[in-house]
Structure formats: structure tokens, C-alpha cells
């Protein structure tokens, strides 16, 4: 994905602007990050009281996290903390916002788009739909989901996991007086929005409430501190592995090569297969379990296709 490195960006002082795209008229928005090629984006949207939309679908996967207020979605009521993943082509019922609401809205495959429809598209992967209240319907989970692991005091709730890429969306928090003395980078892009609280990283300083980042792969971040606690929504675009180190001055190229060197040492046959001529298929190696994975829009986006 070709979103630039936006870190840190504190959106609270920037004004909302009219959202003049079909399906969003009557709402206001701010762009937090945008892929200039595909139009994939993360938006903060304010749905004013009285906003209504007919049933319809998007040609992109999209995710919604309700920051405050209430959105009526057909018979469901999405309140503060509601999270939804809507696969491309899945028709959402009519929307109504009686009193106003703010939400993060993320289009993963293209610019925001909407088409009126009472029925889902026949090719929609409807089983991918997720709709839950992140605050109430999931317990906190201690660190250690990923090894090597963050320090204790960083807790998460997995809201959605993509089985093909292991991209995932999660609520996370740092408890008061959190600290972690290492520098981290990942193979994936990472995104975060601070719902509440301030935390600190050695590179970027403090990120307060309303703070946001879209961080491309292999970029150093950390060490980490948090004095009073932080609650945030996070996402990755593929599998997250914590590469920890303590050299403050490495750049993304150095970090990528170090990741490749680990691959070389730890999965020698796989490395050799990938590196050898004729096997390095541009559409990815065959996978007998998921033979069509190369068609997945998200996988294609990860490989700039």
C-alpha cells in the first residue's frame, strides 16, 4: 500500500469538511491517511443529527468504529465502541443518526463509494462480516499474543483477523505507568488512533487523545512510555511480528535486511526457494489450502497489484 508515513498527526485541531461523495452527503469528514493510487483511506466522519442513508453497498471492504453517539443500522443500534467490518458487496440496511455521531471509517480497497441496494452483491464474502461492541463484547487479553511480546500492561482485544494475510484490527490499551525499553519494527504497516490518552515514543514524542499514525513497514518506533493510560484502535495490513532491537539510528532498509537475514537463518529452505530463479512467481507461490489467495483484493494491494 502506498499511503505515506503519517506520524504523528493530531486531528483534533483540524476542522471537519463537507463530505460530498454519494452516500455520505449530510456528513462531515477529515482524512487521516489516504493511498494516492487506490484511494484506500482512513477517515474520521461526523454524522450530523438527522443524517440518513438508504440501504446499500460499497465495492470496497470497509471498517467502522463508533467513537461517540449512536448510529441506527437497520434494526441494530451501533453505540460508542461499536466495531464493524463490512466486506465489499455486503449491503448494509438503512442508516439513521438521530442525535449525531463520530466514527472512524476505513475503506481498504478504494476511495469511499456507495451504491444503493437492498441486497448484497452475489460475489460478496458475507461470512466476513463482523459487528460487535468492542467495549462490551470482548474481554481484554494480556500481551503475549505475538512473540516476541510487548511488555505486560499493553492489553488488546482482537476485533477482526483476516485469515489470508493475518491483517488484524484491534482495540488496545496501555495501563498507567506502562514502559517498554526496546525499539520495534514490523513487516506490516501499522495504524492507530488514540481514542483517549497520551503515550510516548522515543522517535515521535507524545501522541495525545485524537493522535493518529499510519506507519509503513520497517520503521523504528519505541522505546515506549505511558503515564496515565491510553485507549486506542489499531490495525495492521498483514501479519505483525515484533522485531526488537536497540539501535536508534537504523533506517527502514537496514531493518528490512535484518528481517530478511533472520528469514535466511531461521527458515533456510523457504528462503532458498524464494530466492531461486523460476520459483519467485509474481502472483505468489501456490497454496493448496487457499489456491485463489492471489485474487484477494487485499493480497493484491499488499503486492502493489
Amino acid at each position, binding site marked *: 500500500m502506498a499511503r*505515506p*508515513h*503519517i*506520524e*504523528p*498527526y493530531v486531528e483534533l485541531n483540524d476542522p471537519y469538511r463537507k463530505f*460530498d*461523495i*454519494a452516500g455520505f452527503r449530510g456528513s462531515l469528514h477529515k*482524512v487521516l*491517511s*489516504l493511498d*494516492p493510487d487506490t*484511494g484506500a*483511506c482512513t477517515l474520521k466522519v461526523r454524522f450530523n443529527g438527522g443524517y440518513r442513508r438508504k440501504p446499500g453497498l460499497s*465495492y*470496497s*471492504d470497509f471498517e467502522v468504529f463508533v467513537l461517540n453517539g449512536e448510529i441506527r443500522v437497520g434494526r441494530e443500534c451501533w453505540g460508542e465502541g461499536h466495531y464493524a467490518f463490512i*466486506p*465489499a*458487496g455486503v449491503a448494509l440496511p438503512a442508516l439513521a443518526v438521530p442525535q449525531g455521531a463520530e466514527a472512524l471509517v476505513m475503506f481498504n*480497497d*478504494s*476511495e469511499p*463509494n456507495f*451504491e444503493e441496494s437492498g441486497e448484497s*452483491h452475489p*460475489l*460478496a*464474502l458475507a461470512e466476513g462480516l463482523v459487528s460487535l461492541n468492542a467495549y462490551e463484547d470482548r474481554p481484554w487479553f494480556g*500481551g*503475549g499474543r505475538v*512473540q*516476541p*511480546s*510487548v*511488555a*505486560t500492561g499493553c492489553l488488546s482485544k482482537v476485533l477482526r483477523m483476516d485469515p489470508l494475510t493475518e491483517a488484524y484490527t484491534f482495540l488496545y490499551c496501555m495501563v498507567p505507568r506502562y514502559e*517498554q*525499553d*526496546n525499539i520495534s519494527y514490523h513487516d506490516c504497516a501499522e495504524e492507530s488512533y488514540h481514542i483517549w490518552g497520551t503515550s510516548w515514543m*522515543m*522517535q*515521535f*514524542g507524545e501522541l495525545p487523545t485524537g493522535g493518529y499514525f499510519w506507519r509503513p513497514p520497517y*520503521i*523504528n518506533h519505541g*522505546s515506549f512510555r505511558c503515564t496515565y493510560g491510553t485507549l486506542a484502535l489499531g490495525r495492521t495490513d498483514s501479519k505483525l511480528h*515484533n522485531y*526488537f532491537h*536497540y*539501535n*536508534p*539510528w537504523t*533506517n*527502514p532498509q537496514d531493518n528490512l535486511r535484518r528481517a530478511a537475514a533472520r528469514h535466511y537463518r531461521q527458515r533456510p529452505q523457504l528462503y532458498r526457494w524464494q530466492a531461486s530463479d523460476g520459483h519467485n512467481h509474481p502472483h505468489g507461490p501456490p497454496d493448496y489450502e487457499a489456491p*485463489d489467495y492471489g*485474487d*484477494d*483484493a487485499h493480497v493484491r494491494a499488499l503486492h502493489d497489484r
Partner: protein
Amino acid sequence: MAKRVQDLKPARKADAQAWMKENVAEQKKRYAAIVKEQEELGPEREKWVAGFLKIIQTKGFNVTGDVRRIIKPGEIPKKPKGMKKHQVVF
């Protein structure tokens, strides 16, 4: 090739085209502002880095979770010669 809903997306209409143009330009400005702001943080970041390198030699480096390792003086990285700016936004 299996058809995906995403492949059937109609071409961008004028409103979407205008939206893209406006927001790509905005984002370029924002990126430049972030880079400038982060460069201005340079002197303070130097102190943060010095503090970090001290902590990992005393309290230790978080290897995984709360497992820490004390880094010996000989293992401490040296700032690359000739590095004028410590770039953190890429």
C-alpha cells in the same frame, strides 16, 4: 481467476475524482508539516536517545515481554559518522 466484488467497481465519478485530488494534495502538505515538526524535535530526541541507551545498560533492554537483558558497554551502537539528521519519518 475468481471474480471479486472489488474488481467490479465502477470507474471513479467526477465527485470521487475531485475528492481524491483535493485530499492527495492536503496529505502532501500534512506530510511536509510532520517532517518539519519532527526535524525540529531533533535536539530533544538526542536526549531521549541518550536516556534510552543509559536505561538498557542499567535496567535492561526488553527482549520479550518483561524479560530484560543488560546491554554491555561494548554492545551499545554508535551514532553513524556523518549523520546530521536522525530521520524518523520516512
